[in-house]
């Protein structure tokens, strides 16, 4: 059951920085420690903070990169990924697709 793994050892997805670390692993084939370090540096926090849902909620809202709670005027879906791409300095495939579709590039 995935929920048990998440509780026992998971980072917590968009409650924390789980999606961000996963993105960096995927785009740079980085091992977990390096990927966490990379994300922490980009966010300006310590590695241990990446799994702190209290701190990450504030930071995610501040950076407007999406969070579990939907707020009006907050970025959502592809909008949040535009911001994630900038914050992490990585290319996100769907974001690049979107840019092409709306003739941004």
């Amino acid at each position, binding site marked *: *059951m*995935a*929920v*048990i*793994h*998440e*509780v*026992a*050892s*998971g*980072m*917590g*997805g*968009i*409650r924390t920085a*789980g*999606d961000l*670390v*996963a*993105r960096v*692993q*995927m*785009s740079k*084939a*980085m*091992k*977990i420690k390096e*990927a966490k370090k990379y994300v922490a540096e980009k966010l300006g926090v310590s*590695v*241990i903070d*990446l*799994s702190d849902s209290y701190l990450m909620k504030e930071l995610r809202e501040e950076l407007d*990169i*999406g969070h*579990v709670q*939907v707020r009006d005027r907050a970025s*959502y*879906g*592809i909008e*949040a*990924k535009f911001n*994630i791409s900038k914050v992490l300095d990585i*290319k*996100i*495939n*769907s974001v690049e*697709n*979107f840019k092409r579709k709306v003739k941004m590039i």
Partner: protein
Amino acid sequence: MSKFFTRMGDGSAVFLSEAEIRRDLEEGMLDAADRGKIPELTDDEMERLYQIITDPQKTVSIERGNEVVMTFDAGTLKLPVRAGLPVDRMTTVLTHERVLCSDTMEIGNADYSYKQLKNIVHEEAASMEFTQLNCIIPVFYGAMPNLGLYTKPDGPVDNWSELLPMAKIGEARAAQEEAIEMAVKDMVYIASILYEAGADGINFDTVGASGDGDFLATLKAIEILKSKYPDMAIEVGMAGEFVLGMHGQLEYDGTRLAGLYPHEQVKVVEKAGGTIFGAVINTNSSKSLPWNLARAVTFSKACSEASNIPVHVNAGMGVGGIPLTNTSPTDATSRVSKSLIEIGKADGL
């Protein structure tokens, strides 16, 4: 003598003494070291495993700071198909993102093989595009190479599972070589369309289920895809702990594929251009959780240490030490989770 509650590999409860647990841990670890020709766990690691197994808490967890990320196979099949929830794929992905807080998700078709997707690939691509507009977490597209589907009666190639018992070895090998080329073409075709639809990554799942040919086809497909799309993230999840030699002579870049164990499999995946490696260690349902877990952790540690790419150890039903049951008990699952990460050095699950 006091006994500790633990599990058998089929998930059933069992009470074992300290001596029995230590014996099972030792035997499981030695079995992995012997089969894989890999280093044994240290005394400290074995002691740690013993502590995890006998921890009185029902559910255990990793220490703060050791958290990892999760990737999933059969992602969108779990809620609407297996659990029978009347929800579509996008709702499934968003439920995982916003309620279950998964780090990643995967879209997959109920008929989960690349060959079967050719007629519906554009509908799959549209589904990926809609989902990508609405989700934040990375979303893979996944399916199996499933080389067996290219054989009669499902496909055009002679069935090597029938030829081999008749000792028609040359014919069986030729049939596999023919199927490999077909599978490579299908995998590249499907993965290209899904990637162009915005998938964050492509998952090749249950690789090697049809033997070494299945693995070679996947490696060849990865090479082509990486040359077409250098930024594509590719996860390779294996089918078993060693590559079955259905052909026996197939090589990738000078390495014979049959018989490779996880620490060797990951090296060829890395060479082909894979981004994440999903190691598999089979659970023996007749042995205890301590035996299976020590074995899985020994393989996992060797694999992770050999690898330059992240290793996400498969930890679902019947693999990675998880008991072979649809509803794996949470006490066992959480012990596997903690052990694979803290001792097995997994970069994810």
